[in-house]
């Protein structure tokens, strides 16, 4: 008998209504058709801090890879699965149906998802169908009903107590470490719920940026370029440095708007939020909106020819220099300094 049913049994005598008798958390696992995403493991850490038994839901067009990884995580009690072609593209109209059906069966008190583009898309839709507020992009947990989130582009932190019966939460991955993958063999239950056919929405396809480098939000090092890079071709300098550091490449909004790199590399209030060990900002002035996306990095390096650029106010190490001289010099010398 698994731990989940033990808990269920333990609380049955005290309460007449079985399903609502204890607090329980549902984590909707972020994954692709090929793998579980690190964000899912970070969301589970957040769920652990709430303290309830944790159930994970893996829903998608292909789920085997994600389920295999998740099964080994000691911290969860149970995995629910829904595999359906209708979940291609994780359309929120369909995802919402799936989670609502699961909620009807299990009455979770907390429902959590990573604040990925998928989570941000379906979680609010789900919240209003449950008539609860959404607690979005949390960076901390005080207790099962009190949470921390940032407002005003990270320039203030709000501690709020949710007054809703169900806490629906999206989690900022960079604020929580991932749980480790152990050797558990978590019970898997296939949910016999069909997503409703959607006549008014049709997923056509996606165009994903292919890269050999680490994924931006999960990378331990990030090298980012701004308007000062002057052109897309010049980003080659950054790619070379990123490859030497095994870093992901990011960009400021100015660099994206100027067409130097694609949108999904944007770091900031409206792009990705990152918090790597090392963030190297090159030719980035450091507007409030950019700082919102990277100022929790452990070490920030800025290379900019303008000594008054605001980025130097948050940089641990600043080099006032022409990036077109400094970056090639770094690329040339860095191998000597890198720890093997």
């Amino acid at each position, binding site marked *: 008998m698994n731990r989940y049913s033990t808990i269920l049994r333990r609380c049955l005598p005290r309460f007449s209504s079985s399903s609502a008798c204890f607090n329980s958390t549902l984590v909707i696992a972020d994954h692709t058709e090929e793998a579980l995403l690190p964000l899912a493991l970070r969301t589970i850490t957040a769920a652990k801090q709430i303290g309830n038994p944790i159930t994970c839901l893996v829903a998608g067009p292909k789920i085997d890879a994600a389920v295999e990884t998740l099964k080994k995580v000691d911290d969860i009690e149970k995995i629910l699965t829904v595999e359906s072609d209708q979940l291609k593209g994780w359309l929120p109209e369909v995802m919402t149906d799936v989670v609502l059906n699961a909620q009807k069966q299990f009455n979770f008190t907390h429902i959590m998802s990573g604040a990925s*583009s998928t989570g*941000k898309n379906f979680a609010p839709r789900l919240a*209003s169908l449950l008539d609860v507020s959404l607690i979005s992009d949390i960076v901390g947990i005080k207790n099962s009903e009190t949470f921390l989130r940032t407002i005003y582009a990270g320039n203030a932190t709000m501690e709020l107590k949710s007054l809703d019966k169900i806490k629906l939460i999206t989690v900022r991955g960079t604020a929580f470490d991932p749980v480790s993958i152990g050797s558990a063999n978590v019970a898997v239950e296939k949910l016999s719920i069909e997503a409703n056919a959607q006549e008014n*929405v049709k997923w056509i*396809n996606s165009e994903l940026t292919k890269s050999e480098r680490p994924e931006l939000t999960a990378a331990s*090092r990030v090298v980012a370029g701004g308007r000062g890079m002057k052109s897309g071709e010049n980003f080659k300098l950054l790619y070379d440095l990123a490859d030497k550091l095994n870093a992901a490449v990011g960009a400021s909004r100015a660099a994206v708007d100027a067409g130097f790199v694609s*949108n999904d590399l944007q770091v900031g209030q409206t792009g990705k939020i990152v918090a790597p060990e090392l963030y190297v900002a090159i030719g980035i002035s450091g507007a409030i909106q950019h700082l919102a996306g990277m100022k929790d990095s452990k070490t920030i390096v800025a290379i900019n020819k303008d000594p008054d650029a605001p980025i130097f106010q948050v940089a641990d190490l600043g080099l006032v220099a022409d990036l077109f001289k400094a970056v090639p010099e770094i690329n040339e010398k860095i191998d000597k300094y890198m*720890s093997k």
Partner: protein
Amino acid sequence: MSLRILVGCKRVIDYAVKIHVRPDNKGVVTQGVKHSMNPFDEIAVEEAVRMKEKKLASEILAISIGPQASQDTLRTALAMGCDKALHVNVDEKSFETLVPLQVSKILAKVAQQEKIDLVILGKQAIDDDCNATAQMTAALLNWPQATNASKIEPKDDGKVLVTREIDGGLEYVEYKLPLVVSADLRLNEPRYATLPNIMVKKHPLNLLKAKKKPIDKKTPKDLDVDLTPRMEIITVQEPAKREAGTKVADVDELLTKLKEAGRI
């Protein structure tokens, strides 16, 4: 296609202002601080106006939910080309705990009353950074939702192809109207948005016209929406300040220091 469009316009502290937390730690200082239309909402308004210019839309209703001063934001929307405006007055106290769920209930009610075909909102407000209102409004109306839109292409058969910005790239989704869209930064470049002064010089007529356009007024009660708080604000704090860093003289010093810190 002759759509009736509803656009949401939130009045927020201007994006360039450095905010300060109030001494009572229950919010940020808003008195005497420059406010503007939420940048994402400017993009939403611009998209609606472009659709009208292309004869895809017949009427654009701009809505703002908030204190009295929200009417300034609606005047801007009217000057940009919206036809009429609705101000849903929420007092300062209720506004502090107003959450997207409540805003979306108001929007959904108005969309039904006004027989709206397309709701366009910004993807997030730059004050609460929630990124939820469009999704919630779509759910309440039981309409599909096209969030983070960077391109909206109406088709002859009444369908709309939307390019969405997602983690890792772009995705293409086809929708049947009615629909709720949320605008990403790259959807368009709003006219006047960055240079409001030029607007006054170049388009004095628009502003004069905007003054004559009607602003209808309602309260959440008129729309039967309950604003009882869904959350209690415990505290609002400024984030921990980073310690001042050091400037290095050259590349060698930079690399040495990074190595000492164990970062490379």
